[in-house]
C-alpha cells in the first residue's frame, strides 16, 4: 500500500495502461506542460511523446469527435474535456455519435473511448465551472458513467474504463484531486464497472452516494453511529450500470433509503434510485425514501451563497435522524 492522491492514482492508471497498450492515448488542451487541471497527466507527455499525449486547439467538439473517429479506427483515446461544463460544447458528438455508433451500425462499430470530464464544486469557480451533470449521461443509451470517489477507485476504475469497449463518461471530482488515500501499487487490476463499494456497514438506514459526497456521508455515518444510528453507506462508483443488487440487498436489510448527491436534486440520478427502490421494495420500506441534492439554482460564486448550495455533514445527520423521529 502506498499513499497517493486521487490525481496521482489516475495518473498511475493511465501510465500503466499506456505502457500496456500502445493504442491508448489522450487528447485535450494543455496536457503537456500543465499536465491536466489536477496533474493527472503530469510528465506523461515527456514519457510517451506528443502523439500520445496530444495538446489540442481549443476545439471541444473536435476533441470529442476526433476521439470517436480514433476509436472507430482502432485506438483507445481519452478525450480530456477539463470540466464537464465545457464538455457540453461536445454533447452532440458524445450523445449522437459515440453513444450510438455501435448500435446504429448494427454492431459493426465499437467506440472504446473515454470522455473525461471532471464535475463538481471547487471553491468559487461559479456557474460555468462547477456543474455535476452525471444524470444526463445515465439517461443516454450506450454510455457508461463512472464517478470515482477515492484514489484507489480512481486508479482501478480508470483502468477499467480504458479497457472498456464502449464509450465511458469518466467524471472525476475537481474537489478531490488533492485528497490522499491508500493505493495497492502492486495490484494493477481494474475495478469492474457496475460494482458498488460498501463504505460503512450498518443496519438502520442505507445511504447511497458517490463522488465527493462519499467522504462527507461517511463522516456523517460515523457521527450517527455515536448517536446509536447504524448507517450503511454505499458508494455507487458507477452510475451506469448502477449496482442494483447491492443497493437492494442493503435496503432489504435496513428498510430505509436516502440518496445523497451534489448535483441538482430535481432530475438528478438520485430520483432513479429512490424511484426503483420505491417501486420494487415497497413492502420492505419502513419509511419513505429520501433524497438530498442541490437546489435548482446555478452555482453561485460568493462563499456564503456557494455554501448554501452545498450539502453539509450536519444536514445529512439531521435528515438521517428524521427517519427515526
Amino acid at each position, binding site marked *: 500500500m502506498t499513499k497517493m492522491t486521487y490525481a496521482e492514482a489516475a495518473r498511475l492508471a493511465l501510465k500503466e495502461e499506456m505502457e500496456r497498450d500502445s*493504442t491508448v492515448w489522450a487528447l485535450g488542451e494543455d496536457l503537456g506542460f500543465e499536465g491536466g487541471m489536477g496533474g493527472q497527466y503530469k510528465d506523461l507527455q515527456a514519457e510517451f511523446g506528443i502523439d500520445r499525449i496530444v495538446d489540442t*486547439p481549443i476545439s471541444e467538439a473536435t476533441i470529442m*469527435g476526433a476521439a470517436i473517429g480514433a476509436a472507430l479506427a482502432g485506438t483507445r483515446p481519452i478525450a480530456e474535456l477539463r470540466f464537464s461544463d465545457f464538455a457540453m460544447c461536445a454533447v452532440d458528438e458524445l450523445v449522437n*455519435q459515440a453513444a450510438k455508433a455501435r448500435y446504429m451500425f*448494427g454492431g459493426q462499430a465499437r467506440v472504446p473511448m473515454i470522455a473525461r470530464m471532471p464535475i463538481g464544486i471547487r471553491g468559487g469557480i461559479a456557474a460555468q465551472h462547477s456543474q455535476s451533470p452525471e444524470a444526463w449521461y445515465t439517461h443516454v443509451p450506450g454510455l457508461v458513467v463512472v464517478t470515482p470517489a477515492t484514489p484507489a477507485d480512481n486508479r482501478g476504475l480508470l483502468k477499467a474504463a480504458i479497457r472498456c469497449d464502449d464509450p465511458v463518461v469518466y467524471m472525476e471530482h475537481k474537489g478531490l484531486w488533492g485528497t490522499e488515500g491508500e493505493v495497492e501499487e502492486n495490484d494493477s487490476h481494474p475495478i469492474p464497472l457496475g460494482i458498488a463499494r460498501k463504505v460503512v456497514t450498518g443496519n438502520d438506514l442505507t445511504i447511497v452516494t458517490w463522488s465527493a459526497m462519499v467522504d462527507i456521508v461517511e463522516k456523517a455515518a460515523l457521527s450517527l453511529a455515536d448517536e446509536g444510528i447504524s448507517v450503511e453507506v454505499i458508494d455507487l462508483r458507477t452510475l451506469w450500470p448502477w449496482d442494483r443488487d447491492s443497493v437492494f440487498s442493503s435496503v432489504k436489510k435496513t428498510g430505509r433509503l436516502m440518496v445523497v448527491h451534489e448535483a441538482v436534486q430535481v432530475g438528478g440520478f438520485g430520483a432513479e434510485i429512490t424511484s426503483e427502490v420505491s417501486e420494487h421494495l415497497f413492502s420492505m420500506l419502513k419509511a419513505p425514501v429520501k433524497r438530498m441534492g442541490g437546489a435548482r439554482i446555478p452555482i453561485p460564486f460568493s462563499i456564503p451563497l456557494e455554501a448554501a448550495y452545498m450539502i453539509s455533514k450536519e444536514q445529512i445527520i439531521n435528515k438521517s435522524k428524521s427517519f427515526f423521529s
Partner: protein
Amino acid sequence: MAQVQTNEPARIFNMYKKMLLIRAFEEAAAENFHAGNVRGSVHQYIGEEAIAVGICENLRNDDLLTSYHRGHGHSIAKGADPRAMMLELFGRVGGTSGGKGGSMHIADFSVGMLGANGVIADGCTISVGAAQAIKLLKQDKIIVNFIGDGGINRGPFMEALNWAKVYELPVLFVCENNQIAATTTTKTVTAGDGIEARAKSYGIPAITIDGNDLLLVDRTAARIVDEIRAGSGPQLIQAMTYRLKGHYAHDEALYRNPSEVESALKNEPMPRTETWLKDQGVSIEEIEKAKDEAKKLMANYVSDAHEAPWPDISDAFTDVQDVGSPAEGTNL
C-alpha cells in the same frame, strides 16, 4: 481531357457502371419510399454520382471514408454491397446494419465506410480523429470526408479543418457543392468566397472542380490521394454539382426554378460520361446493356429485400453496450 491510357475506356466504363448502380439504387430507394416499403428519410444522390465514383476509384479498400446524410452513393462507390444496403433501407435481416440504422446511418466497416451521418458535419471531426489513429498506428491509409455545401457553415467542420492541418493529417475533404441545402440556396447563407477560400485560410490546399466531369474528378483525386498518402497533409476538393431531385424523397423541390433544373439536366454526369465513352468507341448497345443490368440487379435486390425476414424483436436490445441491462425499463 487528359491523355487516354490504353485501358482507360474500360476503366472509365467500369466507373460508369458504378454510377449506374448508384443511380439505380437511388431510384429504387425513392420508389420504395413512395410505396411505403422504406421509411424515414431517403436523400438521393442523383446527379452527383461522378464525385463519389471518381474519388473512390482512387482509394484502397482499407482507406476510410465518412459521409453525411446523402450517403448511399459514397457507400456503393467505396465498395459496400448494394443488396445489403437495400435490405437495410427495408429494415430487414441481412441489411448492412441489420435494420438498426436505415438510410441515414448506412455504413459498411468492412470496406472502410465508417458511416453516413444524420447530424451535419459530425463526420468531419470523426474523420480527423480517424486520421490521427492512422498516424498513431503507422498505417499508410488515408480518410476521405464528404460534406455538403450547407454543412460547411457548422463550426465542427471549421474546427476539423484547423485540426487536420495542425497535425498534418491524411484527410481529403470533399465538399460536394450542389448549391443548395434543403430548401436554402447556400450562397445566401455563406459569406465570402466559399469553402475553397476558407480551406486556404487554414493553409489547406484546395481546388474547385466540375464534379459532374467524371474524368476530371478521377484525375484530380488520383493526384491528391497520392499526395496525401505521401504525406502532404490534408487537402480539400470542392466539387461543383447539382442535386437533381428534392432534398429527400418526400420533397418535390417546388422552391426551384424549373428552368434551372432543366439546364442542370443537360450538365449531369451520366450523359456526359456516356458521350465520352461513345467517343472512345464504346457502343450504344454496351451502354444500354449496362443500364439494363443495373436496373435488373436493383430489381432483384428489391425483391430480396421484400422477402428478407424482419429482425427479431430481441435484436432491439443487442449491440447497445457490454455492461448494464438495456432492457431495464423495457416494455417487453
